[in-house]
Structure formats: C-alpha cells, structure tokens
C-alpha cells in the first residue's frame, strides 16, 4: 500500500469526518463536546473556510446549523447520543422546514457506555423524526458518507443524520484525501410558508414529509451505500455500521447485504436478498432496529435471539452467538485490584468533595463531568447523577418533597460547562420558586472531562482566540440568587466553612468553587511547589489518604514494624507522597494536623 504521500492519510473516524465535511464545502459547524464526538469539531475548526464553534449545548448547536442552512450554506451539527436528546426539539421540526444549504447532524452513539451515562440507540430518532440516516463502517466510509449526506440533504430537502459509534470515532484507518467542493454563496431568501412552523403551515409540511419519505424509499433501493456482497453458503447476513466488519471477519465468504442507510430501509432489496439465502441473520449493535422492521415486513429472520441487545459487539461476541464451535482456548481472567479512573493529583474538585464527604447527612445531587468521580471511594460524596444540568432541578425537587426536614441537607454540584449547558434554567427555577437548597458550581475554567474544550466562561474561542468570559457570579445574581460566594477549593478548611454556612442557609445560595484544572497547558507549565511527607511526624491518622489523591499512598505497619520505625506501637501505618506525581495543590497539607506534610519550593 502506498502510504507515504500527501493524499493517503491515517486518520481517526472523527478526523476523517472533519475532512469529509471540509471537502463537502461545509461553511458553518456548531456542536457541544461529548465523547466520542468531540474531535470532529476540534479538527474542523482548523480548516480554512469553515466557521466552527462550541455551542453552550447541543440544542443551540443544531439551531445554529439550521440557521446556516436557511442562509444557503452547508452546515454541520455534532453531538454525542445523549446530546441528540437535548437537540431533539429543533430536530423534529427541522424535518418539516427542510433545508436550503445541506444540513447534516453527526450523532455519535456510545455502545458499552465507555464514557456515557446511558446506552441509547439513536437509530430510533431517524424513525421517529422521519429523517434519513446513514451509518458508516470505518473511517474511510465515514468520510465518503459525509459527502453523500450533503448531496441527499439538498436533493431531498431534508436534514440527514449520520450515526457513528465509538469504534468509528476513535478507530484509525487509511483514508484518501480529496479536494474541497465549491458551494453557492449564502444569501437571504425568504420562504415563510416553509420556514414558519405555525399549525397552518406545519400541516402542509407534514404532507411534504410523507412525500419525501416515499421518494426516499424509492431512492434507497439503488443507493450505492446499500449493497449486496454475493457469497456462498446458505447463511446470509444483513448488517450495517461497525458490526459489518465483524460479519466480514468471521464469515468472509457469506452473502451479505450491507446497509449504508439504516433508515428508511430498502424493502425490495431486502426481500430480493432474503429470497436467495436459507437462513437470514441480522447482525446489529444495541436495539433490534433492522430486525423489527424486517419482521414488520413479514420477512423471517434471526437477530437478537442470538446477539445481545446490550453493550458493544465485537467479532468474538458475534462468533460466540453464531459459530461457537470456532472458538479456541480462552484463558480465564484473574481476580485483580481494579483500576477505575480517578481525579488527578492536584485536582481542585477533590478539595471541594473532601468538604462534602465530611457532611454525611447532606444529599449531594451530582452532575456529569470529571467531578462525577467524587462518587468513588474514598470520598464517596455524590448521591445522584442523571443527565447534564439535572443536579439543580433534582436538588430543588428533593427540597420541595422533604420540606422542613431537608433543611441544610440538600446541595447540587455541577461543573462550569455543565452549568452553562443546562444548569442556568434550573437555577432560575430555584430563584423563582424559592428553596433552601444550595448549588455548587465547580469552575475549573474548562470543560475537562471531554479533553479541555473552551467554553463561554473560559475567555477563549474554540481556536484559542480571546472571547467572552461569562461572569458566573453576576449571572447568578441576575437570576435572583442573593447569596453568591466564591471559594478556593485548595484551601480545604476555608471551603468547608463556607460550605457549611451556605448549605445551612434558608434561602437559595450558590458557591462557586474556583481553581483551574491541573491539566490545562498553562497549569502544566507553571512552576509549582511539591509537598513531601515528614515521616517522623506522621501519626498514621490517614486523613490525607482519605482524600484519594493518586500521589498519596498508605503503607500498613505491624506493631513491631511501627516500633522499629520509632512510631507508637498502635500506629497502623504511614502515608507517603510520591513527589513525581505531586502537583503541588497543598490540599493534603491543609488537612494534616501534625505538620507531617511540608512544602518544598518549585519543582
């Protein structure tokens, strides 16, 4: 394979999609970060001729893309699967208005929940919103399908959804680069009957949607992305997306109907294929989406009776489901200490959660971000987490249900990006309807969990250029919150005091816990002090160990060993800081009452 040249590239699915969008002539792209979709926007922002931006949430992102399309530009909105829930409102009605410039919604599902709170199968959205959906099988196809999606979008006057999964987004493969396509200049063109979705207009468009679906059903029969790969044997497969690879891997010679478009389905093609095979098996990840529609067509097939409807597939799972006799010896796993993710050494969130971990009768209504790791032991300081922004509504609802008995015991915790994503309206609700619950905003100056994206409070655009830095305190006050305080979470004691006071206050309060994420490039570069343990002073109280910092470890001691080291016989062990891992936050020195943790100046 000729690899060493300018046009054959080695790209991840997300890089390939960004390239595909650029080649397709996309002018405007908006999205909100979310694994596994994030790198698409990051890459696209670096191409000439594209305005790419981080929106505060997916609904805004899709609305921006719709607007660009109304102006005649090709536009892209990107999001992870749960992001499409947030953007579902504009999605369903954009199906009615249709498009002017091509409009593509890039949706990334996360089977197995590698980095997600649920495992929904967003093919169901294509069915429910009556929109076409394409599904690639690898990075090269993802790039090609982006181009096809824009053609179809303009041809059919419809938004087109592309569904990828983690094993497209974060899989690297060989991709051929093409040229950027010319597209018409954007302009204002009014067509209110088509774009103003009042009931009278919408009823007319409702009919257009059905007509379009009919046209699509004809078109998919000859769409090159749907193809029959002839083969031998009586067993035939219908598959799409990543699972296509697993079928090819295990059954290289079997007949396969590969669906590049998963909605609507090419019924005639499916019937013709089914007629040529003895046993028809649908191999698909998550829901029995194709299978259900096949059964509705009256086509007998097997599918989820063999293949799990939960979790990510791989060739092994498919093999086990269909040809278990081909599995050789598999060694059993060993029982080993787990290594779950943890907050980094020096993470500002730790200081805050340490405070909350000391308030055992307070219910901590949590949210989604790095700080969700505050749930894990030893801090164990989060009691619920539903979806982005939910912490505030949940805390408010709990307080309303608990009444007096919950006073001083309900607090919401969420990150800065999460607050701007969908926490602001919840806070407005608290101010409007009144509560004693408190809200903690963990302002680490970035969207850390998804890899440090800029956001409306970080002061920089997606390209790192100067931008608005929202003043969170002023916003909270403007929403009607009178008690707003700011703490430095590395000062563990002062933070605890403020937490106690504010959580006990009888009116809504906001505590902004502000310190930059230690992984931000400017923080990584900053000269920081390092802390070390004076082992002579350590009494083995283990308070520092209970903070769960990865730089601090515990060495247990038998009584003889304790004595030999000059400790009291009763001392159960000692704590030690691994200086190479220390990021110099000083939180542990704050909690140590025995002067056993000391600062050493700059690394």
């Amino acid at each position, binding site marked *: 394979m000729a690899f060493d040249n300018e046009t054959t590239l080695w790209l991840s699915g997300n890089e390939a999609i960004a390239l595909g969008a650029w080649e397709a002539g996309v002018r405007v792209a908006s999205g909100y970060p979310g694994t596994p979709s994030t790198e698409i926007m990051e890459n696209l922002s670096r191409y000439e001729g594209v305005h790419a931006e981080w929106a505060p949430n997916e609904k805004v992102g899709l609305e921006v893309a719709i607007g660009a399309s109304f102006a005649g530009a090709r536009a892209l909105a990107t999001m992870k699967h749960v992001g499409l829930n947030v953007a579902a409102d504009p999605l369903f009605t954009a199906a009615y208005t249709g498009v002017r410039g091509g409009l593509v919604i890039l949706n990334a599902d996360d089977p197995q929940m*590698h*980095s997600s709170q649920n495992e929904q199968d967003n093919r169901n959205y294509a069915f429910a919103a009556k929109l076409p959906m394409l599904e690639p099988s690898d990075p090269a196809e993802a790039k090609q399908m982006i181009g096809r999606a824009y053609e179809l979008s303009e041809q059919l006057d419809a938004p087109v959804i592309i569904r990828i999964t983690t094993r497209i987004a974060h899989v690297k493969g060989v991709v051929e680069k093409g040229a950027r396509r010319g597209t018409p200049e954007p302009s204002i063109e009014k067509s209110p009957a088509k774009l103003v979705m009042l009931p009278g207009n919408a009823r007319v468009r409702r009919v257009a949607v059905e007509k379009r679906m009919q046209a699509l059903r004809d078109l998919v029969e000859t769409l090159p992305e749907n193809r029959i790969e002839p083969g031998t044997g009586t067993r035939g497969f219908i598959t799409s997306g990543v699972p296509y690879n697993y079928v090819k891997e295990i059954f290289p010679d079997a007949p396969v109907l590969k669906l590049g478009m998963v909605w609507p389905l090419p019924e005639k093609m499916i019937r013709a294929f089914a007629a040529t095979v003895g046993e028809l098996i649908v191999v698909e990840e998550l829901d029995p989406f194709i299978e259900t529609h096949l059964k509705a067509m009256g086509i007998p097939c097997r599918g989820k009776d063999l293949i799990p409807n939960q979790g990510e597939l791989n060739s092994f799972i498919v093999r086990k489901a269909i040809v278990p006799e081909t599995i050789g010896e598999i060694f059993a796993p*060993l029982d080993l200490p787990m*290594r*779950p993710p943890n907050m980094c050494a020096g993470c500002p969130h730790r200081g805050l959660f340490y405070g909350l971990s000391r308030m055992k009768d307070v219910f901590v209504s949590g949210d989604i971000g790095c700080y969700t790791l505050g749930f894990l032991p030893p801090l164990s300081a989060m009691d619920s987490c539903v979806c982005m922004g939910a912490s505030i509504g949940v805390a408010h609802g709990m307080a309303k249900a608990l009444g007096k008995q919950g006073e001083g015991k309900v607090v919401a915790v969420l990150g800065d990006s999460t607050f701007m994503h969908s926490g602001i309206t919840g806070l407005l609700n608290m101010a409007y309807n009144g509560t004693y619950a408190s809200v903690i905003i963990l302002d680490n100056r970035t969207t850390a969990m998804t890899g440090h994206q800029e956001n409306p409070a970080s002061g920089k655009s997606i390209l790192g250029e100067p931008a608005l830095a929202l003043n969170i305190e002023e916003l909270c006050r403007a929403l009607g919150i009178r008690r707003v305080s700011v703490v430095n979470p590395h000062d563990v004691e002062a933070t605890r005091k403020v937490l106690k006071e504010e959580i006990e206050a009888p009116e809504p309060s906001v505590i902004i816990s502000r310190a930059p994420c230690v992984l931000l490039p400017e923080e990584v570069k900053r000269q920081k002090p390092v802390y070390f343990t004076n082992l002579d002073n350590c009494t083995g109280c283990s308070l520092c160990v209970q903070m769960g910092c990865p730089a601090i470890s*515990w060495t247990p001691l038998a009584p003889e060993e304790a004595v030999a080291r000059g400790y009291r016989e009763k001392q159960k062990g000692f704590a030690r800081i691994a200086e190479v891992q220390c990021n110099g936050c000083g939180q542990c020195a704050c909690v140590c009452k025995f002067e056993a943790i000391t600062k050493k100046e700059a690394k």
Partner: protein
Amino acid sequence: MKQSGNILFSGVGGQGILLASELTAHAQLAAGFDVKKSEVHGMAQRGGSVEAHLRYGKRVYSPLIEPGAADILVAFEILEAVRYLPYLHRSSTVVVNTRKILPPAVALGKAAYPENILDELKSHHIKVVPIDAFAVAESVGELRTVNVAMVGAMSNFLAAAPAIFLKVIDRAVKPQFAEVNKKAFSAGRAAVRV
C-alpha cells in the same frame, strides 16, 4: 514474514500508550500493511486502565482484537499485563514494563499488590519479556520517553526494521524531542533479550 497480526497495548491513563500504538501503526503501514487501531478517549483516561488495539494484515475489517488472539501485548504496568490474560494465547509474547503503579485500593491500604503475578502468564506458556522502561528512559535523560522505550523493546518481535521506526519517530514527534526519543527506542530495543 507474518502476514497479519494483533498487537494489544495496555497501561494506565497518562502513560502514553496512544503515542506508542501510533508509532507502531505507522511502522506497520510503512511496511506495507493495512492497519486499523482502536482507542478509547474520555472517562477512561483519568488514571484508569487503558488499552489500544492494533490489527494489521492485507485487509483489516474489525478494529478490535478478539479474546485469545493478541499475538503481542505491550503492557506498561505489571497488573495491566495480567489483566489482559484472556486476550492472550499460548504463543503470545508479552513485553511488560516492570515499574509498578499502585491501583487506588492498594494505595489506600485496602488491597495488596499481587506478588510474582507475572508467573501466571508464564504458567500458560506465554513468553514474558520484562523491561524496566523507566530505567531506560532515565538512562537517556528524559523520563517522558518510557512509551518509546517500550516500543523499542516490542520492535524486536516485529519484522519491520528499526530504521523504519526511527523514521516514523522523526515524523511523529516534535523536532526538539526526536533525538532523545530515537535514543530511547534504541535503548529499549537493546534492553531486552529476545
């Protein structure tokens, strides 16, 4: 020369397994193979166990290695080597960095770090190739080259010539770090007995 194969990388978030797998992928591409590589980003990177799957051959479909099918495991930590036992087979080779990183339960004193756990691999007739990659990185004067030292050690078990890897390193890392990384590669390659 082997016409296809599966290389699994495992380690702890932050150890640089992405770069290691990337260098290996480029070397295999340069050797004329089709390659697919799979990684997980996001939550998994915060100090948890991480893995990358690399498959090469004439035409690669699946981006994931099946259990029982990893020919080479490049493990950046001992526990992260034995954790992947179900992916190995009787003629697998495991290149393993012997520097321990304590998992949280061990650091908290709630569990012990298993002793002599690499024997579990040997008892399945798996070839275990230990390397103190931290010491190698130290010897070239840059602790951040542990991952490239690991690639060097692993390269002994691939057909691609060292020169291919050195060229790949030149292209993949910033010019000011190219020399030290190439040194780490060569030192890692020399540090293990084949």
